[in-house]
């Protein structure tokens, strides 16, 4: 991009709203969605490619583009309504900020995504990355009631709302959750809240992997009321053996009752409670381990396919940094993998009807294998039309499918 263009951005958005990244690329910091829409409209006219960055802590900021946009300056928690269990936040707000503001109101967002607490809430939604709490509270889509998006050509679309039940119009919000920013730039979110749990207890059981996954199945079959039941590899848990971590949340009496049941229903596992002051650190470290390798993937297995999926990942990649829902079957792996190996894993898991999503990796790998790879028959055409709808100039630099479509 030439200096004239840089000057044009400054003139358009004000000098304070345009900086340069480490490589001299203009980085625009719009202060609201109207400014962002103006930027996108201009980019559409000029055919400038756009790279979206949240806080830059999850996906590396390396997608090829003429300019970067960051949601930094849209980082406020706009409102928290404890009696409605709903909050409205700007997409650039960090998870840390959201958690703090909610806690002040006695509220809580039941999402514990991988990565750093400085991650933006927009990044969590765009990548659809949920964590161990998915066991009880569901994936990211279950926590988002509505959103505002600026499309690639600068339109502002507001879907959903601040109520927990809503079927007015199509559910456009779902397209944005886990859409990796290919359908627009999320600027604002309506989130579903819960009251801050009074008791928060974590227990750990250690042992061989298969014994722990069996324990996870037993606890799930017995409907033990755990909020998370996560299998962690030794390196990820910083232990000498595999770990099954159970997190129980809620009223004190309920948590005590469920703790007893967990122990009864998983007879051959020995559970040790984690000291209360270590709980936050433990789960925080487990979440940050997803950043330890340059690549992070998730595989959507079912519980009865979890052992098989873990075996395949071990055999084709490795099993150093693994975190898996022992009650859901959702697996997250981090490490290093050449494109061919990654593709082989994706193909073999596809044969078992297990989708593999590339959650983060350097652009070179994203470009080649894509976040999703090849679609099922007919779906690529639909996704293509939807991308064309929300980004008619193909300006948003996102590798959904990859270069070779697999």
């Amino acid at each position, binding site marked *: 991009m030439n200096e004239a263009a840089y000057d044009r951005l400054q003139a358009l958005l004000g000098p304070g709203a345009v900086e340069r990244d480490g490589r001299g690329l203009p980085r625009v910091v719009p202060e609201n969605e109207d400014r962002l829409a103006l930027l996108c409209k201009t980019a559409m006219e000029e055919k400038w490619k756009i790279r979206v960055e949240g806080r830059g802590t999850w996906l590396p900021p390396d997608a090829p583009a003429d300019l970067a946009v960051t949601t930094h300056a849209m980082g406020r928690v706009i409102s928290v309504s404890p009696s409605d269990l709903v909050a409205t936040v700007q997409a650039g707000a960090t998870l840390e900020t959201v958690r703090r503001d909610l806690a002040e109101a006695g509220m809580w967002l039941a999402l514990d995504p991988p990565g750093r607490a400085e991650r933006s809430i927009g990044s969590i939604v765009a990548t659809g990355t949920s964590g161990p709490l998915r066991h009880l509270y569901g994936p990211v889509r279950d926590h988002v009631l509505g959103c505002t998006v600026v499309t690639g050509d600068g339109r502002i679309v507001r879907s959903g709302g601040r109520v927990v039940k809503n*079927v007015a119009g199509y559910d456009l919000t779902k397209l944005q959750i886990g859409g990796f920013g290919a359908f627009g730039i999320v600027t604002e979110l309506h989130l579903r809240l819960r009251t801050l749990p009074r008791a928060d207890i974590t227990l750990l059981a250690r042992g061989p992997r298969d014994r722990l996954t069996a324990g996870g199945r037993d606890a799930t079959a017995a409907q033990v009321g755990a909020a998370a039941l996560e299998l962690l590899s030794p390196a990820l848990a910083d232990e000498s053996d595999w770990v099954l971590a159970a997190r129980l949340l809620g009223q004190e009496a309920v948590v005590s009752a469920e703790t007893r049941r967990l122990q009864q229903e998983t007879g051959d596992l020995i559970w040790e409670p984690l000291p209360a002051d270590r709980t936050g650190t433990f789960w925080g470290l487990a979440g940050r381990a997803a950043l330890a390798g340059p690549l992070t993937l998730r595989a959507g297995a079912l519980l009865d396919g979890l052992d098989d999926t873990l075996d395949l990942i071990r055999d084709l990649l490795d099993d150093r940094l693994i975190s898996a829902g022992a009650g859901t079957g959702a697996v997250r792996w981090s490490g290093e993998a050449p494109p061919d190996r990654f593709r082989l894993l994706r193909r073999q898991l596809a044969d078992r009807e297990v989708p593999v999503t590339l959650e983060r990796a350097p652009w070179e790998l994203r470009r080649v294998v894509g976040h999703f790879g090849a679609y099922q028959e007919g779906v690529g055409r639909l996704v293509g039309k939807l991308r064309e709808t929300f980004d008619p100039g193909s300006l948003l630099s996102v590798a959904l499918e990859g270069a070779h479509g697999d």
Partner: protein
Amino acid sequence: MPGIATDALARDLARIVGPRWVRTRGSELVTYRADGLPTHESTPRLVVLPGSRGEVIAIVRLLSESGSAFVARGAGTGLSGGALADTDAVLIVLTRLSKILAIHPQKARAILEPGVVNARLSEAARPYGLQYVPDPSSQTACTVGGNVAENAGGPHCLKYGVTTNHIAALEVVLADGSVVRLGSQSGEPWGPDLVGLFVGSEGMFGIATEITVRLVPIPPAIHTVFADFMNLRAASEAVSAIIASGIVPAALEMMDQSCIQAVEASIYATGARTDAAAALLVELDGTPETVEAEAALVEALLRQHGARDLRSAATEAERARLWQGRKKAFGALGRIAPDLVVQDAVVPRSALPDTLDRIGAIRDRLGLRISNVFHAGDGNLHPCISFDRRDRDLSERVRQASEEIMYACLAAGGSITGEHGVGSDKLGYMTAAFDGETLGAMCAVRLAFDPSGRANPGKVYPTHACKEWSRAGSNEASRGMTR
């Protein structure tokens, strides 16, 4: 009338499904001209009832070739005029596709055809200790395919989520007759969340021919309590208190005096006292220890907020009786007058007390009988207006009341529909709920799935209010844009 003559089309359709399953005569079509909402009627061009997935695909391909519009319909219990076809559209009734294809207890999944009746699915899953949670009041009649189209809810969606939270994968026939598979058995999407986008698209993206649903274990313990109040506001404040306590009941339902009286005067009577201003039905589920702990807290909160009588169900039969009053309330209300409009809107939970007051004021000013029976825990209201459609003045007041209620809910920060869909009934409110750009996005997304705009035309968004968007990959978009 587009393309092919109706007689010729009926002959072609009969070749696919057999003459028995094509309806063309006026007297046969009458059955299909409404969907339980007395204010909207429309007679389809003709009706076809396919008996298999293959027949659905063949029908959609035939209609694509002839350029005919079509509307998919389940049991016709939607209450929003969503499954109505006008005189140039073919109604495809899916009730014959009623097979449960597989239940996988280990995976907690079932695969079924769209015409399976909601309640039958849970019955079939029960021997495995599993259930299908979304339970609309019409569950003994409505189909899961219809539930997918509308993203239906039900009392137990407070804790477990609505239809969209229970659909893992779909096979869909698009309007051009092509077939796509969306989602996976685990629910993790292969790509963007197109299952999430499809659920609630009101039959305008295509027809789901195979549905993979999540089943959840039947909880080992259930505690159901019925509490009555002498004051409507106190009852709705009790709802807020329960929600604020952090307990998420499986269901938290409310009925006002008018509704209680209608139920108690009907065969669905539960023994409730008819002088009560309101009643709450609260259900807790989980393990026995959890339910016991939560029940003590909930009952204390109910009493603190002025509950007069608390009746708990000690047996499954008693529980069924308490629920009967709630689930059959619409039936009981149907006895009051020849016609009943069941409205559907949502407000933030904190706005419930004021909104109920406002609905009361609208009722008094317009001289109507409005009964409220609804999902209080979700803020999902169902004001039910009893009337006689032959009385034109009364019908006009019903229309006016419906409109005022919708605007009151929007003004409270709510939505014009929580589970019935926009259909034809709510079309006029969409411009108050969304700006032109967002409506334009909806129109454009629809055209991505159905560039010809032939699947359930004229529903959900008022085309005139949509800002123009690019028509991705379509040369045929004009029909959808100009309807």
